[in-house]
């Protein structure tokens, strides 16, 4: 158990915004093969931590190691090259375009034939590769030629995830993947995360929804007021899910809660 390889190992991460301490000496590790939940109330520092890992913000103090090597993540490009892909709440999708175009956004294949002279793209090859990828992940997506804006919330999440997987990303960070989704759509996204687990080294999920995180994560890190206050491994609770739920909430809010089942 303690021999699990850490694919991300961040130590002593501290971030100030003026006089506000967003993160205070937070240690963070993502183990190989796990789905890690990152929970905490608003303002706890979850978004800040994730932005540091994805290169959107620089920490004031602290060190990060990725796959055992020291890493300096200065911008989103650095994170991409380390194999870390962050899927933000707005999904960074292009509503006016279809699935294939979204997968290849910014990275289109160049034509290998005569078209190369004019800088043409290789539409057929892109379409072929994109549909092959979907089949290998066993997701059910409607017509590949549909505009993404016509897809449901869960399907849109799928497109974002498939894009990350297509480009070989090893760590996927998801910011509130089930927020604003109905019960059925959220369930589909949770299934999708289960499936994605097989194709990557690790997944970090930020969420407010404790029910959801209990369903898919192996472990949860709790932040409160910028500090790390808890590290809860689900296996330790066995079937005692109510207790698990309560303990997590206690850590998030820092209060003792009344056992409503009494």
């Amino acid at each position, binding site marked *: 158990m303690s021999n699990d390889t850490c694919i991300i190992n961040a130590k002593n991460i501290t971030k100030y915004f003026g006089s506000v301490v967003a993160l205070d000496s937070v240690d963070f590790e993502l183990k190989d093969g796990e789905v890690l939940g990152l929970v905490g109330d608003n303002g706890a520092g979850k978004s800040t931590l994730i932005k540091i890992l994805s290169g959107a913000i620089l920490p004031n103090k602290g060190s990060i190691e990725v796959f055992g090597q020291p890493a300096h993540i200065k911008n*989103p*490009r650095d994170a*991409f090259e380390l194999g870390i892909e962050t899927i933000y709440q707005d999904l*960074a*999708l*292009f*509503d*006016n*375009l279809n699935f294939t*175009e979204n997968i290849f*956004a*910014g*990275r*289109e294949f*160049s*034509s290998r034939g005569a*078209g190369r002279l*004019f*800088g*043409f*793209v290789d*539409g057929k090859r892109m379409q072929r590769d994109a549909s092959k990828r979907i089949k290998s992940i066993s997701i059910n997506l409607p017509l590949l030629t549909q505009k993404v*804006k016509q897809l449901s919330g869960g399907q849109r999440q799928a497109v974002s995830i498939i894009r990350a997987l297509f480009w070989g990303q090893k760590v996927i960070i998801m910011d509130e993947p089930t927020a604003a989704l109905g019960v059925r759509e959220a369930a589909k996204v949770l299934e999708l995360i289960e499936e994605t687990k097989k194709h990557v080294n690790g997944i970090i999920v930020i969420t407010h929804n404790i029910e959801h995180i209990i369903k898919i994560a192996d472990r949860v890190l709790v932040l409160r007021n910028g500090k790390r206050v808890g590290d809860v491994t689900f296996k330790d609770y066995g079937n005692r899910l109510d207790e698990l739920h309560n303990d997590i909430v206690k850590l998030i809010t820092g209060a003792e809660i009344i056992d409503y089942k009494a």
Partner: protein
Amino acid sequence: MKFLKILSRQREFGTFLVVVVIFITMSFASPYFMSKTNMHALLLALSIQTVIGVGMTILMVSGGFDLSVGSVVGLTGIISALLVKKAGLPVPAVILLTLLVGVGIGLFHGLMVTKVGLNAFIVTLAGLSLYRGLTLIVNDGKQVAQLGDIFDNIGQFKLLGIQMPIWYAIIFIIVGDILLRRNKYLRQNFFIGGNETAARLLGIQVDKVLISNYILISVIAAFAGIVWTARMGAATMYGGAGLELKVITAVIIGGASLSGGEGSVLGTFLGSLIMVLIINILTLIGIKIYWQNFLIGAILLFAVTLDVLTIKRRERNILKTMTQ
């Protein structure tokens, strides 16, 4: 049969059908419609709009806007005429220098929008007045004529019985449409127009592409300024007036969205064609020329309403482009 199926799925098919219907109706409405002279005059009137329409389509797909093109046509028209007549420069030099003016104007627009962060609508609206003003200042409001055969031929030479502006338009449409659909660099405009933040996140050099769009359209406008002056044989201070609205209208009728992410060169051409056809037929059956502006507005309203009602695309808030 399969070809027909693919054809019918293209966005432009609906617009194309409208054009066919108009054509058929018109050949019954007036015996002069199908005559060679009328067709030629029609296409000539269309040529400048079409050429600029290519640049405007690309710009609007990226979410940008240029209200100053008409004034740039006027200004570059006068500049090229003055360079030929007063400065006595050889025609190739005149063309080069005038196009460079276009580059400068486009660069100015591009930098104001991307680096200073001004709204494109505002920058080019200012440009509209600025360049029209310069057109008046530069030659005291007087027109410049008698520019010599070599220069005039740019706009008046007939190749296979068809005047050069029409040939330019044909080349621009074909090259423009194919490149916007297939060229990797130009395709980036669809991503930028669809979701600029996401485009940046994915590594697209948004600022660079936007600046090149503004330069492209201004250079095309400068080219149009030269061609138009050459065709008229003179440059006047009214050159290009009202052009921007006609071109933008054509781009929208052709299927582009005001907020960006959609559009095609072919669609824009069909949009221009529809406008010009309707005005042509009404002129032929005797409606006064004063109705033109009214008709352009009416056609635009009709086309956009039709589009919204068929829920072909979701038009995002126009206010967004004005208050960014």
